[in-house]
């Protein structure tokens, strides 16, 4: 017998994401879901962000990795609360993993929570975790063809951080093409050109982030 069952496949995840969002709102913490391919500079962006705005905001971090605690140790060195999630193979964080992880964080004492997703340009875009905003990083060395190859993440993100711009002279990447194609996919995308190495552009990014968190 055929029965009509009309439901979103990720309905369960989305429901937990809504729960997380309520917890975050009640605690008064602003949450960003930071996504990129492996090696684009997620942890480096967290480090420079924390160093730039630590005096004004209380920041916590959730580190998502398939295995290991290297990133959590780097962030712990900054003297802020951090929880490591090891997905054990899963290529993305989902709402339930975040729901469990945040019980180990002093949410009420935080202004900003940064969730570093698993390095992957595809899957994390599909799973809401209860964030206020998704932010993606693309490093210049990944090439200027990425927006049209991985459109979903560019469409889902509110901001795009173009990292490693100090390496522009050494690559064939056309930064204008990246910006043009990204904006075609998502006209409201906010784009920042930065280098964690030289510090260029970081204050524009942190200034903007800070204006949202208040």
């Amino acid at each position, binding site marked *: 017998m055929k029965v009509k*069952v009309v*439901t*979103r*496949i*990720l309905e369960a995840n989305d429901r937990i994401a809504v729960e997380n969002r309520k917890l975050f709102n009640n605690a008064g913490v602003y949450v960003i879901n930071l996504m990129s391919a492996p090696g684009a500079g997620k942890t480096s962006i967290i480090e420079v962000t924390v160093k730039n705005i630590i005096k004004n905001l209380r920041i916590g971090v959730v580190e998502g990795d398939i295995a290991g605690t290297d990133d959590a140790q780097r962030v712990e060195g900054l003297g802020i609360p951090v929880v490591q999630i090891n997905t054990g193979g899963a290529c993305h964080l989902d709402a339930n993993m975040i729901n469990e992880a945040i019980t180990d964080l002093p949410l009420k004492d935080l202004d900003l929570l940064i969730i570093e997703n698993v390095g992957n340009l595809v*899957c994390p875009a*599909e799973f809401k975790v209860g964030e206020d905003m998704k932010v993606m990083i693309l490093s210049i060395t990944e090439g200027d063809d990425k927006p049209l190859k991985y459109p*979903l993440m560019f469409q889902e993100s509110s901001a795009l951080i173009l990292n490693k711009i100090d390496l522009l002279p050494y690559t064939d990447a056309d930064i204008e093409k990246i910006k043009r194609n990204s904006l075609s996919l998502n006209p409201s995308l906010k784009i920042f050109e930065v280098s964690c190495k030289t510090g260029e552009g970081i204050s524009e990014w942190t200034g903007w982030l800070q204006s949202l968190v208040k």
Partner: protein
Amino acid sequence: MHEVSIALSLLDIAKGYCEKEGYKGVESIGVKIGKASGVMSEALLFAFDAVKIGTIAEKAHLIIDEIPVSGFCNTCNKNFTVDEPYVVCCPECGDSSFQLETGRELDIYEMEVLE
């Protein structure tokens, strides 16, 4: 890779529905997968066959209805469909004033159940 998570969510929904309504098993699950949803149909079929073993949907097959990416152009005043998993401009006039209409689906629309 996240097709395994999608397949597990499908099984959870099927299991929950059968328990609630008192059905004995699932013979098929019909899903709509938009071409811009980020899910690959082949990978989802493979993942579903792997994770369904030992569940209420062990004998079920997955029927995937792939939905193309389509939109409505405000300049041409008509609908369009594209082959790519994204739209950057209207394929007719090249204008970027458009609304996406389909392509992001990730839905179950029906199940065949055993009473």
